[in-house]
């Protein structure tokens, strides 16, 4: 076990920036989960599988098209593909189960996780893939004499855009307002003549789109591999929990806590870096058992 004896400010700043880029991915994935949880009341375990599928799809599309344009198309096509899958799943099966107990819904989505993990193995095989960045996003900027990868900066721009978009969607648009109303009183919204079933479907698809987007964005930064789903889903769930169930800003706060403790943990105790975020979550939950911000249920 090696303690980092002297942590320099430069190293700390660099880790914070890296942590913030990781936060972006976590936020995008967790906010989709939070949306589905808040409106549909589904603890969607296969959200992580969709993230994995998003990454694999992005890889396939980028390789198929090739060149710098390939990556740009992949960033759009992969989440759309994931959204299509979720549309089929929701209309085919989930819309019949909304009245069931949470435990059943949780296990049902877990069943999907099992199925998806084998389907990914069937389609893409067991090898890991890696996706290289287009030249425009390669290399790094120098910030305060520190090298900082361009792609990480790109992620830092995408995060706020998604956050703002979600806020706009849920607070300013008609569908967002209907969805929020439906999450509180489904029957009443149905009684005034709105097709709640399709509103729920739309929310579910948007949530899943975000999972796919997270997967596509993460694809160039790490190996695309089986098992990505296990790691991300537990993190996303914890983020949603510490933020407050169904609260989008809570998801942002939770992602920040998760991303930053992980990045800073590497400086303090490299070997136990993965322990830090879990410890942070436990500490938050001991003091605020229902999350930091107001939960929607």
């Amino acid at each position, binding site marked *: *076990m090696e303690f980092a004896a002297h942590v320099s400010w430069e190293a700390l700043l660099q880790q914070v920036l890296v942590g913030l880029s990781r936060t972006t991915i976590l936020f995008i994935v967790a906010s989709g989960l939070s949306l589905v949880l808040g409106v549909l009341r589904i*603890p969607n*375990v296969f959200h992580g599988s969709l993230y994995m599928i998003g990454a694999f799809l992005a890889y396939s599309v980028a390789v198929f098209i090739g060149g710098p344009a390939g990556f740009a198309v992949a960033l759009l096509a992969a989440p759309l593909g994931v959204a299509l899958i979720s549309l089929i799943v929701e209309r085919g*099966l989930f819309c019949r*189960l909304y009245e*069931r107990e*949470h*435990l*059943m819904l949780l*296990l*049902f989505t*877990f*069943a*999907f*996780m*099992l*199925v998806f*993990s*084998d*389907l990914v*193995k*069937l389609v893409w095989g067991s090898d890991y893939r890696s996706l290289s960045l287009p030249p425009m996003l390669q290399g790094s900027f120098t910030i305060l004499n520190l090298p900082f990868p361009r792609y990480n900066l790109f992620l830092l721009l995408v995060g706020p855009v998604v956050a703002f978009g979600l806020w706009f969607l849920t607070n300013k648009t008609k569908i967002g307002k209907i969805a929020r109303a439906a999450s509180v009183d489904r029957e009443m919204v149905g009684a005034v003549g709105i097709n709640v079933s399709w509103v729920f479907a739309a929310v579910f698809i948007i949530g899943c789109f975000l999972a796919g987007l997270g997967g596509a964005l993460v694809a160039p930064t790490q190996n695309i591999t089986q098992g990505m789903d*296990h790691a991300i889903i*537990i993190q996303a*769930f*914890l983020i949603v*929990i510490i933020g407050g*169930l169904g609260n989008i800003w809570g998801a942002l706060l939770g992602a920040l806590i998760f991303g930053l403790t992980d990045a800073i943990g590497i400086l303090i105790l490299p*070997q*136990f870096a*993965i*322990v830090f975020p*879990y*410890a942070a*979550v*436990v500490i938050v*939950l*001991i003091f605020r*058992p*229902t999350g930091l911000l107001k939960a929607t249920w």
Partner: protein
Amino acid sequence: MSKGVFSPKTWLLLAAAVACMAVAPQFLSRFYTYLISLVLVTGLLAMSLNLVLGYGGLYQFHHAVFYGVGAYTFALMRVKTGLPSIWAYLAAPVAALLLSLLIGWICVRLSKLYFGMLQISLGSLVWAIVYRWYSFTGGDDGIHGVPIPEALSSIDNAYYFTSAVTLVCLFVMYLIVNSPFGRVFQATRDNPERSEAIGVNVKRQQLVGLMVAGFFAGVAGSLFVTIEGSVFPDMMFWTLSLEILIMCLLGGWFSFFGPMLGAAIVVVLRTVMGIHTEYWTLILGVMLMLLIFFLPEGVLGYFTARWGSRRRAAMEDL
């Protein structure tokens, strides 16, 4: 409870089952003896979860962590100390019990999904530590070649030991479920407010229930090491916890023996399917979906509902 624990007919059935299990290794190959041992251990684990899930209504989402801690305690005692094996067998459930006291104490303040999620995060913390603490737990490699007591090193003897311990545990669990404590525990599941109103300390009742379940999960952990000889961090990963939940649901979480049946189905399916195809989780997933759609009470729950309306009534009384 005035007419004894079981009726004469049940005693007869039980004696027949024990006799079958006693002679089984004489007729079966080593592989099947091993498979039955594994089913028993996993079944004990699933039934211990059902103590709190089915009888207590608590969303124990990370039960595997108690199983894993039991197994690791046993393995570490065997590897790092020269103490006789009996101490390792005693330490495993005690460690699991202490951990469930700690985790339960933090979690019982919450209910349902919040309870489950807080437990998953606490359990994942334990998993993350075990996963990375190379110098102590072996990290992601786990510990292999744990020295098993001489008397239990053959698979037949390990089988007899496993079945004996499992039977004793099941008997004790049955007594607990039907004890005054068990009845009150079920009352806290069905109506916590009213239980509180008649003077039951619901949170304390739940905490004790969690500790009992943790204890038996720890026993299952030590039995697993006995037949397998190794431990690894996947034993306390959250996916295993959900798999145990599936076992309870599959067999029937409102019946006492349901989880054992569910465990048998999952373990046998995994082993048999694993030989023919690498896509066995696909099959498990599809089965689970069908189950949720068509048999929400589980396999055993379904059959008890169909076969005996009297037993059904008795089950609802529980």
